[in-house]
């Protein structure tokens, strides 16, 4: 598996001054594999993505993406950011947003308009956005916008798809749809997916492995291996309970655990959303 890996981290450490986010991280991600990166706010999830994007440098250790060091503007990497609404008057149609992923980084004028349009149509179809291809992006719902972001991110057929909390502020239905879309990128198109999230449930059925970050340490394994009371208790260094409720996993009692943006109190009460 290691020779086919598209992401290889060896003894990787990231620290800001005296604060170590994670150290001695050895990790390989194979094509088609779906890796979820979990952890509380400030545990270094986003920094992990930034490192893969080449926007933050490792303090020590090595990182190779598809055989080359991480760098900005790598066309083998697609990036889906947090959902962020466009202003209603943004001068862009859905298809133009997707088109930015096709050739938005090229200089000069577009010469081959026909192949561009064909590719954009294909991408819209792939994420089920054909019906609203000509609607201004500012008039679309958050879920529709995220579909377009995914189409934009995979436009250059990246071998690696990085997602930074793409489900944030989406309702449950849209969370499911967007997750399934990302899952398909791994299964059908063989992309290695790194999915940063603080909520594993919407993506649980797609996840192959979990990287759980907390307090400068980490745990790596399948969801069954990692999402267990004793494993997370050891990681957090305090009593943490992982409950299975109706096919959903709920982590309670972590000192700085954040679920859906609500800090849990030490008594381990479950947020309303989790029970619903």
């Amino acid at each position, binding site marked *: 598996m290691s020779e086919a890996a598209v992401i290889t981290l060896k003894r990787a450490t990231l620290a800001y001054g005296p604060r170590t986010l994670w150290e001695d991280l050895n990790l390989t991600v194979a094509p088609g594999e779906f890796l979820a990166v979990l952890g509380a706010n400030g545990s270094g999830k986003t920094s992990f993505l930034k490192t893969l994007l080449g*926007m933050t440098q490792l303090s020590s250790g090595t990182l190779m993406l598809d055989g080359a060091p991480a760098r900005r*503007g790598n066309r083998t990497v697609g990036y889906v950011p947090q959902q962020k609404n466009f202003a209603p008057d*943004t001068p862009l149609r859905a298809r133009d947003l997707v088109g930015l992923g096709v050739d938005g980084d090229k200089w*000069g004028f577009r010469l081959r308009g026909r192949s561009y349009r064909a590719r954009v149509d294909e991408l819209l179809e792939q994420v089920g956005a054909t019906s*609203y291809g000509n609607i201004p992006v500012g008039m679309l719902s958050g879920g529709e916008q995220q579909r377009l972001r995914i189409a934009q991110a995979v436009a250059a057929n990246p071998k690696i798809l990085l997602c930074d909390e793409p489900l944030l502020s989406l309702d449950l239905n849209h969370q499911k749809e967007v997750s399934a879309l990302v899952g398909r990128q791994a299964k059908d198109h063989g992309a290695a997916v790194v999915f940063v999230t603080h909520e594993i449930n919407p993506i649980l059925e797609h996840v192959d492995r979990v990287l759980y970050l907390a307090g400068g340490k980490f745990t790596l394994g399948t969801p069954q291996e990692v999402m267990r009371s004793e494993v997370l208790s050891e990681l957090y260094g305090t009593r943490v309970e992982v409950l299975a409720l109706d096919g959903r996993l709920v982590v309670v009692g972590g000192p700085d655990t954040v679920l859906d943006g609500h800090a849990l109190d030490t008594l381990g009460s479950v947020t309303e959303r989790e029970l619903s």
Partner: protein
Amino acid sequence: MNWTDFSDAVFNFSNYGELLPLFRDTLLAGAILGVVGGLIGTFVMMRDLAFAVHGIAELSFAGAAFALLIGADVIFGSLVGSILAALLLGVMGVRARERNSVIGVIMPFGLGLGILFLSLYEGRSANKFGLLTGQIVSVDSTQLSVLAGTALVVVVGLALIWRPLTFASIDPDIATARGVPVRTLSLAFMFLLGIAVALSIQVVGALLVLALLITPAAAALQVTVAPRRVVVLSVAFAMISTVGGIMLALGGSIPISPYVTTLSFVIYLLCRATGAVRRRRGWSQRPALAA
């Protein structure tokens, strides 16, 4: 002033056929400025830089006034002023909030400097007024070629950075991740914007630059969001305003700028009304929902 005096001053088309050929160069200059204003305006709207345009114009005015005072070329002076201002804004204000306060600080300073230079200047007072309210009336062929050359720099420059600039304007984070040099592009755009502002000041003056650099693009965005149509409409609106404004102004005795600003305002109103009707009918009519 009674009504006849007023209408004679504002609309006077006697001897129009003889006047028109004499102003061929002026009309050409207006058309060129229309192209520049319409093109760059679409990015000014996309990047939310309307206030910056105003700030740059005031410093451009200061530069032009200084050039007038020391007997240098006025266009050159206004170019230097506005490019300096534009680059300063590009370097200092990355975020919109920060940028707006920087503009608020330098704008009155520039205007004050300009007034100082103008009051020290002892030449014709028409020259003074022209910098603020527009003066294009007599463009000679040398000025025209300078104008055309500078405009060409802006148009070619924009064409070269068009796609990455769009990407960087819409979504700087993703553009950065894709390797688009967002910061460099921002500076390059401010440089081109500085040139465009200095050119526009020649027609409508420092106070009314927005009519050429904002209104046409804003009007176009009321009726369409398809990028190519926005550009075509924006350029068309800007050209109708400048060329139409000059043609209306030829016989009368008042400056060109009121005609230009009124035309572009009327176009904006029409587009706004069209856009409102369209939105009410719902321009998000979707096949999937209609079915």
